[in-house]
């Protein structure tokens, strides 16, 4: 029985950790943990979740209490993992898994492979091109934005790979996109610098942090919400700075 209690606690903690590293909202993390705990009769679970940390404790029946603290760096978005954990917690609620099975399933979810890099690169290009067109660019502008989007993700996935801080990554990303856009325009592909750059910058925009930040604040998780919104604002500021750097240099040295 004692072992079981420990395993249930570990399962609850792991579920929270997987969700938070995948970029779930605080409300979802708390809700899922409570659901799993309730399904396994884990009593007196107390949770305190921030956007970058988990603190949970239980007071067990006979063997004293358990507690866990996890630091979780602000991570990327893995919506597939969020969906999988959501599904799992629903199934646990229906009594379809023993704690052991649930724990192993969570370990599997944690190891879910990310999409192959080439798919992400192409998606970034397609997204940039499509949004360039949506913003009002022409066909050739979209082609130029497509190339800029490709280059951007090639740079991120193969050159940066976590070597740079987030700030440096975004400034250099914004600058790189503008360089490529200028290059394409000077090669005669595309005619509207504004549209090409605006489209190509879209993969850098912090849509996830923005949306989740608002959701956290709507759920009255003010600390986590403001951390995420601050993250979003910082990313936008860095991006704008990168764009500024390139345009300024270009206007000063070449454009006159």
């Amino acid at each position: 029985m004692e072992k079981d209690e420990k395993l249930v606690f570990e399962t609850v903690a792991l579920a929270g950790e997987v969700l938070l590293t995948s970029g779930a909202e605080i409300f979802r993390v708390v809700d899922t943990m409570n659901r799993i705990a309730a399904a396994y009769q884990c009593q007196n679970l107390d949770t305190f979740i921030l956007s970058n940390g988990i603190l949970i404790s239980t007071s067990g029946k006979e063997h004293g209490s358990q507690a866990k603290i996890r630091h979780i760096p602000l991570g990327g978005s893995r919506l597939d993992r969020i969906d999988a954990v959501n599904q799992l917690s629903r199934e646990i609620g229906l009594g379809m898994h023993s704690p052991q099975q649930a724990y192993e399933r969570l370990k599997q979810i944690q190891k879910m492979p990310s999409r192959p890099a080439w798919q992400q690169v192409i998606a970034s290009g397609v997204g940039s091109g499509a949004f360039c067109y949506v913003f009002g660019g022409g066909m050739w502008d979209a082609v130029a934005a497509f190339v800029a989007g490709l280059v951007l993700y090639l740079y991120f996935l193969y050159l940066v790979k976590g070597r740079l801080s987030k700030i440096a990554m975004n400034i250099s990303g914004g600058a790189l996109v503008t360089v490529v856009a200028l290059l394409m325009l000077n090669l005669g592909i595309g005619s509207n610098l504004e549209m090409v750059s605006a489209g190509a910058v879209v993969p850098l925009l912090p849509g996830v942090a923005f949306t989740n930040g608002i959701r956290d604040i709507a759920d009255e998780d003010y600390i986590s919400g403001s951390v995420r919104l601050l993250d979003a604002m910082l990313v936008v500021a860095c991006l704008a700075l990168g764009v500024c750097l390139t345009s300024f240099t270009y206007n000063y040295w070449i454009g006159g």
Partner: protein
Amino acid sequence: MLRLICEVLAAGIGTVAFALIFHVPSAYYWRCGVTGSAGWLVYSLCLPMFHALPAMFAATFAVVCISRFSAVQMRCPATIFLIAGIFPLVPGLGIYRTAYALVTNDTSSAGDIGLTTLKTAIFMVLAILLGLELPSGLFRKLANADTDSAKITTNKTKNR
């Protein structure tokens, strides 16, 4: 008119592309694409009738509602559709124009465009908040007709 159709299609394609980057399970790509397209369609249709800000509000609200409806129907978190679907509406052009105006020392238009971009973002926030406040029973009722088919889909996802 043709331009509008192409733009709506492009918004859908772009949304699916970003859905892939955010690792949305491939079973939901269609829904994400439709959500993104619908958002841009609402924006484009409202734009001639109202000011840009109410149009943005309506579009974001539509995206949130569709996301929540899909979430109930497909039994998965609304975030999946919301994050991808909102991308066509994020004011990327405004951010770029602000940065560019700053560089060219055009302070007054930088302030102008920057403020408009900020207002757009605030209207999006308001729409998201309003959409999230709607009672979930409403979406459950709307999706109720298809609950049985949704159950089958859930089982499929489970088995895979």
